[in-house]
């Protein structure tokens, strides 16, 4: 059987991941694969871009597959070529420069692009969006000469970009339209604590500020707000959200809402040979902007197309996000507020220590949480959320890492010598029956005759016992003898 032709539009987090998954599942034997990627690189880990800006990562360390990888795997990569049109009649994708690929199956993974808010003068020098590695490089280059930066947008990406510029030594302002930061994921209380923590790190945060224009001639020199106030700055980054890239699909006559509409089979309802995955896709009324759902979709589509599991269905993803700002532990997942009358809300709030935990529980399962300021409990709750696992009846038992640290251990049965399984009780009994040196205890019980690491503890039990029983044995002289015996033994 000859191979089918598979074309992927988009070489980002979703498109490239899909190709990897497909090849890993043996899809290379079934398909002749071609990829359009409008960026001039192999694929890289976009998740880490804000860390590259902050200097935590070298740009070279975020690359996943170089162009060679595609060649080695028999994948035709049209590097730096934007797809312009999907011709569904002819089953062809036409790219820039006349490059065209015929397909039997097509995967649209065009991602999203920054929303450009209606602000006058955003085309000036010194104004940036933050989406690609090239954006990142331009911003970093500009930051070398800049003193003051303004980030428009106090969402996740805006805060991470702001942190990056702060690390590069700039005076950094975050200008946010809403009344608290990250309002899509945080409630007001959480937003307030986060704001204070970021301010403590040195960010300047301006809430409820609508930017209407920029100052400056060819170069930006400041921002103008709708209340007439202004903010001087010599660079601006616009982080006002993203919008799915749906135009190709729209032009091809596929159903599009906010994103390209897909079913559980990840295909367009209008064309069974066209799939959409990633940020450009809309499943069940939901578009996704974090990586885990994209990868879920990529994996499931690969399973279907590689025929490993042709009936695999995508039923939606659990969404969680972690703010990647060093020194701040913030993870949010699912709903931030109760959705139904019977949803339970459990809140622990300690603003002075910057700890805030809020769980939304439905039928004993976690459907949402805000976890700020305590990293140690994040994974347990996140996994409980991901798995829809039953929570303990008392959620406090899972909200605090110390919840179980002081369960009374029966100290008498506590094992002192692991090599020989000797309990404290046995050692005390031996001491009571007159074995008053570490060696004597060892002889009587075998405690300390293995690796020897418990001998210090046996010595301590001996001393404590002697102190307790007082009298004749408590004499400092006797303890001295014991020490000498112990030292000689070890």
């Amino acid at each position, binding site marked *: 059987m000859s191979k089918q032709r598979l074309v992927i539009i988009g070489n980002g987090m979703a498109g490239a991941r899909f190709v990897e998954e497909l090849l890993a599942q043996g899809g290379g034997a079934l398909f002749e694969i071609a990829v359009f990627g409008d960026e001039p690189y192999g694929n890289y880990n976009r998740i*880490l871009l804000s860390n590259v800006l902050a200097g935590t990562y070298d740009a070279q360390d975020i690359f996943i597959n170089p162009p060679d990888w595609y060649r080695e795997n028999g994948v035709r990569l049209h590097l730096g070529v934007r797809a312009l049109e999907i011709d569904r009649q002819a089953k062809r994708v036409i790219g820039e420069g006349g490059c065209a690929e015929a397909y039997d199956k097509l995967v649209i993974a065009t991602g999203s692009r920054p929303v450009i808010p209606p602000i006058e003068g955003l085309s000036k020098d010194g104004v940036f969006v933050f989406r690609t590695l090239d954006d990142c490089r331009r911003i970093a280059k500009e930051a070398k000469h800049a003193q003051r930066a303004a980030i428009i947008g106090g969402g996740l990406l805006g805060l991470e970009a702001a942190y990056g510029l702060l690390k590069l030594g700039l005076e950094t302002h975050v200008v946010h339209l809403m009344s608290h930061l990250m309002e899509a994921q945080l409630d007001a209380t959480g937003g307030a604590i986060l704001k204070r923590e970021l301010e403590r790190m040195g960010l300047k945060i301006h809430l409820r500020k609508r930017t209407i224009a920029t100052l400056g001639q060819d170069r930006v020199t400041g921002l103008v707000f709708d209340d007439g106030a202004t903010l001087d700055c010599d660079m601006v980054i616009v982080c006002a959200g993203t919008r799915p890239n749906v135009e190709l699909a729209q032009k091809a006559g596929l159903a599009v809402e906010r994103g390209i509409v897909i079913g559980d089979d990840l295909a367009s309802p209008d064309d069974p040979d066209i799939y959409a995955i990633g940020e450009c896709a809309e499943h069940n009324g939901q578009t996704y902007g974090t990586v885990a759902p994209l990868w879920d979709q990529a994996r499931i589509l690969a399973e279907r197309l590689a025929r490993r599991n042709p009936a695999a269905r995508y039923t939606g993803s659990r969404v969680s996000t972690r703010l990647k700002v060093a020194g701040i532990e913030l993870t949010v997942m699912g709903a931030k507020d109760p959705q139904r009358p019977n949803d339970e809300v459990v809140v622990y709030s300690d603003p002075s220590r910057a700890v805030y935990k809020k769980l939304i529980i439905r039928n004993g399962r976690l459907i949402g949480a805000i976890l700020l300021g305590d990293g140690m409990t994040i994974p347990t709750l996140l996994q409980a959320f991901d798995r829809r696992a039953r929570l303990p009846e008392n959620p406090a038992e899972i909200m605090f890492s110390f919840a179980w640290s002081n369960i009374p251990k029966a100290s008498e049965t506590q094992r002192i010598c692991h090599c020989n399984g000797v309990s404290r009780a046995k050692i005390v009994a031996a001491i009571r029956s007159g074995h008053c040196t570490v060696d004597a205890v060892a002889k009587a019980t075998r405690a300390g005759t*293995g690796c020897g690491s418990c001998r210090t503890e046996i010595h301590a039990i001996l001393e404590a016992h002697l102190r307790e029983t007082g009298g004749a044995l408590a004499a400092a002289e006797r303890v001295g003898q014991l020490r000498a015996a112990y030292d000689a033994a070890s």
Partner: protein
Amino acid sequence: MAVALQGIEFHRAMSDAVFTHCPYCAFQCGMRLSRSGSKIIVEGDESFPVNKGALCVKGWTSAAALEHPERLRQPLARNARGELVPTTWDDALARIARAFIDARARYGPNAVGLFGSGALTNEKAYLLGKFARVALGTASIDYNGRFCMSSAAAASIKAFGVDRGLPFPLEEIAHAETILLVGSNAAETMPPIMQYFQRQRENGGRLIVIDPRRTPTAAAADIHLQLTPGTDAALANGLLHLLVRDGLIDEQYIRERTEGFELVRRTIASYWPERVERITGVPVAQLIEAAHLLGRAETAMVLTARGAEQQARGVDNALAYINIALALGLVGKPSSGYGCLTGQGNGQGGREHGQKADQLPGYRRLDDPAARRHIAAVWRIAEDALPGPGRSAYEMLDGLGREDGVRALLVMGSNPVVSAPNAAHIMARFEALDFLAVADFFLSETAQLADVVLPSAQWAEEEGTMTNLEGRVILRRRAFSPPEGVLTDIEILCALAAHLGHASSFSFAGPREVFDELRRASAGGLADYSGITYEKIEANRGIFWPCPAEDHPGTPRMFADSFPTANGRARFHAIEYRPPAEEIDEEYPLYLTTGRLLAHYQSGAQTRRIAELRELVEEPSIEIHPATAKLYGLAEGDRAILRTRRGAAEFKVRVTADIREDTIFVPFHWGNALAINRLTNAALDPISKMPEFKVCAARLERSSANGKEG
């Protein structure tokens, strides 16, 4: 050689005591055995440089097995009513020979099988392999080490070109600045090794332990990464990601001594800490702390054990951890490197000399023409008379009694109906055999199924070499004569060979003669023993292989200058994390992991019969987190039914906060209704064929034995 001389003098001074080694784990503690009246006295051997006199409770009580009332003292065979009754050696051996000849005639040579053990001495393991290929001409031979060391072994061969558990002496542990100990509860499974970790700590070193349970070993660590079962590859990749991010890798070493790093670097780019946290359940802050302790140390070690290895991706897991050791430039440097902690007594030697389905002595490959030529010459047979590679342990057991499977089987030193995964199924396969013979010293659960049972000698009753976890070949001496009516395994194999008409290839007067042939057979192989003699072992308290000539001192440390790969470089392997074969879900919402306890050893056939050990732990229980216990209405001491897709079993509940909320633990040392391996998943690693003992999905129910709830 001052130490060695001292040892000999010591030996002479206490001439009534015999210096030998413990029958249990791969640490092979030196011990002295003597008799005082009717009592056998066990003492630690202070002069042996490995345990330095230390013993654990299993070692102290080991002699109780020697004169145990349940000890088998004569051969048994099934009578007409199907009962196992005493018989003569001649009858027993003749029956086995007849059954083997019969099966071969009816179904071909591969219908006769052998199942060996990592408890056998090098001489026995070697002879068993030769017996299969020369006396039986069968490809059907494998051993229980598949369930133990096979993943680490395969990973080491892929990465370094050779597999020696620790390619450096134990002593170096004490001098490593940071140690990453993966999936090992050495404090209970190999207690005397902890003296080295204790000294490491006294020297200012740090210990990081990776384990889903807060074991005594994890409790002694500076950092405990309490990972979700089955997520090792993600964790290892995540640590390497941080080491690359923070510029802590050794670029020069990578350039000069390794290959394949570029692909690894690209692969781990997708394992950023937040993602790894979500997969593994290990907090980001701990990941960073651990990576920095490893990456900033001058000397560091990565040591893996069964936790990471006994998975359907066990080889990948071990390779992912090896990548860390290579990227940090540790392998081949003093007090640094990668190693695995071998489990069974002769788990190392047992995997070198030919009782594996694909292997010939000297760690040679059965499909390598040069190796076949060499061995055929030593064995004086035609090269084409050597069978090819056979099926791995689980595959062989799974095929018992089937059309193209083994019909007549001899098991030596192993109890697979307890230790194999999906054990109820394996039990059924054993029952489907035409014929089963078992050589053991107790009537183990497997022996109870046999048509013929041969009583064999125990460790203190015969001589032979063992290769400990460091690759140090040591000598077990004979302290006592076997009981009347009991033969050694070597005597059994030689006698059986004679019954099969192969007396001339199996005329060994004793283990020394077998060892001399083993030396010749291993010569030129990776595990070259040709320069090792019993005398040399005695004088030096062990010789590290490879030792290619009698005047060669052995090789305590490997890889100083190069690796035994085609181009002398170590190889990186890009590993992607994949979930375990069976993920938890609504129906089976808990991870079941299995493992070992201090008081017992492997299938428990020995230790369950020793009163003092039984008193320490009488029966297995389910370890469960208090929050999870409450969820299921269970309290300490209750009985609970544990269910997986393979079956169900009832256990006592032990509530402990030392385990993850999503995980339960059951030890595997018991048989029949208490055999947790009836519930484990037999998904196999594609390379090592290691079953997934360490993770499957399970659920819990209150047992009706508890009475009404509340």
